[in-house]
């Protein structure tokens, strides 16, 4: 019976990571923006959702954090997504206007470490390195216990993931998505044809970061705790690998990549019958494998497992009606 809970647990993680991959796919797969701080936005969403749902910080427990509003989960989730979007907007307006991709990457890379240091050291914000804990179980209308809750949480996770997948799909198959891809292909030419490349890339960055924030909010409801150790730069990397392996620019690819990298490789390997001495080494081995897979895929099959879908239009030149099919 333990298996059921384990799989449900995996399922929730899958939804959370899938949302992350979809968001990164929008930023990088469509628009070519190098967000090397991606997991930081997930953390922002998680923390904000957390401090919205928690009650005020209790000095007796020696914890300090901002807010503590005891608001319902959905309000917190929304706030988490919005805050992540706002931070993305702030960074984006500063760096996307004039900088080429290296430097956008450097700026965001630096942001992730700077925020990591800041949140860890500035305890009044989110209780520093210890982090926040005891976040009440979201949407727990039925007063379920911890185990039953794992099964139950599959529902909101699946719904959120489904909605965001639909949103990502719509974004992709639209003039907006097309404009983003043109910018990714050749920014100079896209601009020469009237595209405001700055605004378009900024919007992609913000939308992707909102996805990350929502994923974070969803996950903190499940994990009930959050600390800097959960969002180191290495985590950003896992999502990047998932998107690239799955197929850049493809939403189905992002989901498949999540399954391969996160579920099979990361979670799946936890189940392998490995001698105890090696158990401690697993995270390091995994890290090495993920890094090597990424490099290998970039070299041998850059488009990934599921390449970006090729749009097919049905054109009927001499008649009035034209139909688009995908």
């Amino acid at each position: 019976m333990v298996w059921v809970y384990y799989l449900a647990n995996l399922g929730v993680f899958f939804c959370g990571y899938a949302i992350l991959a979809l968001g990164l796919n929008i930023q990088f797969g469509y628009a070519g923006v190098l967000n090397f701080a991606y997991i930081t936005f997930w953390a922002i969403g998680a923390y904000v959702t957390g401090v919205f749902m928690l009650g005020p910080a209790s000095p007796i427990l020696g914890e300090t954090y901002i807010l503590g509003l005891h608001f319902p989960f959905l309000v917190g989730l929304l706030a988490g997504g919005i805050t992540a979007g706002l931070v993305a907007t702030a960074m984006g307006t500063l760096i996307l206007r004039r900088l080429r991709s290296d430097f956008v990457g450097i700026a965001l890379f630096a942001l992730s470490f700077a925020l990591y240091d800041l949140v860890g050291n500035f305890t009044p914000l989110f209780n520093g390195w210890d982090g926040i804990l005891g976040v009440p179980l979201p949407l727990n209308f039925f007063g379920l216990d911890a185990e039953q809750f794992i099964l139950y949480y599959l529902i909101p996770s699946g719904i959120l993931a489904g909605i965001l997948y639909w949103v990502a799909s719509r974004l992709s198959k639209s003039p907006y998505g097309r404009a983003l891809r043109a910018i990714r292909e050749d920014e100079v030419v896209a601009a020469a044809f009237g595209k405001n490349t700055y605004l378009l890339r900024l919007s992609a960055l913000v939308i992707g970061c909102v996805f990350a924030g929502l994923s974070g909010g969803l996950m903190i409801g499940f994990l009930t705790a959050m600390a800097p150790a959960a969002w180191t730069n290495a985590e950003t990397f896992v999502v990047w690998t998932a998107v690239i392996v799955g197929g850049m620019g493809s939403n189905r690819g992002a989901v498949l990549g999540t399954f391969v990298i996160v579920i099979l490789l990361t979670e799946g390997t936890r189940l392998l019958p490995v001698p105890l001495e090696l158990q401690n080494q697993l995270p390091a081995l995994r890290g090495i494998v993920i890094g090597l897979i990424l490099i290998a895929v970039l070299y041998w099959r850059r488009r990934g497992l599921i390449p970006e879908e090729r749009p097919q239009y049905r054109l009927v030149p001499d008649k009035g009606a034209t139909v688009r099919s995908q």
Partner: protein
Amino acid sequence: MSDDLLVVSGLTHKYGGVRAVNSCSLSVRRGSVTALIGPNGAGKTTLVSVVSGTERLQSGEVQFDGAGIGGWPSYRIARRGLLRSFQLSREFGGLTVVDNLLVVGQDTSLENPISAVFQSATARRRESSLLERVAELLQEVGLYEVRDRYARELSGGQKRLLELARVMFAEPKMALLDEPMAGVNPVLIERVCELIVRWQHRGVTFLIVEHKLEVVEAICDHVIVMVGGSKLAAGTMLELRGNPEVVGAYLGGTAAHA
């Protein structure tokens, strides 16, 4: 409404220490097909880049359709109706031929995430009519058969045609074409000339950087000669052939031909 759609005054552009364009002044009459000719290195492509905003204006003035566009970013100039093609084809390789056209022909107001998520009936209708135009244009330039191929898979000549089609699909007031015939199958050059003249009749003004003098003779009403970064002379080909300076600098037997 002024007679001249494009007026360039005293344009200067330097790359490092090299003056690629040296206080160049020229104008292009509305509705004309004007050629910009001259030896290699005369600054023609640089001029096109600066006028279209691809390169930032350093000094000088550019007036387009009554507005001073000097210093504007290229996307703003493009939205005003001035578009350019590139000497070396720069198609959107990862997009299909159809998408290459759709993306430039799109109404900017629809290119936002909200419209993407809430796709209205109006938007769908607009896409339909765009697709009709795409089909027509692709047939005109002879790319209909390869419409669903990724642009990077096209042959060199096909890419040149796509480069041209893309500018035309966006329905500019004026098109700056940079050596549109380069790399085009000689058999097709006549076709492309026909198309340019046809579009001229639909109201598009052209400034074409060109080396093939037969093309210039065939379709251009006005010719500007650029040498060493500035305008040497302007007029009809006949007038220019009679101009000893022009002959010496470019038209003579020793002139560098592409």
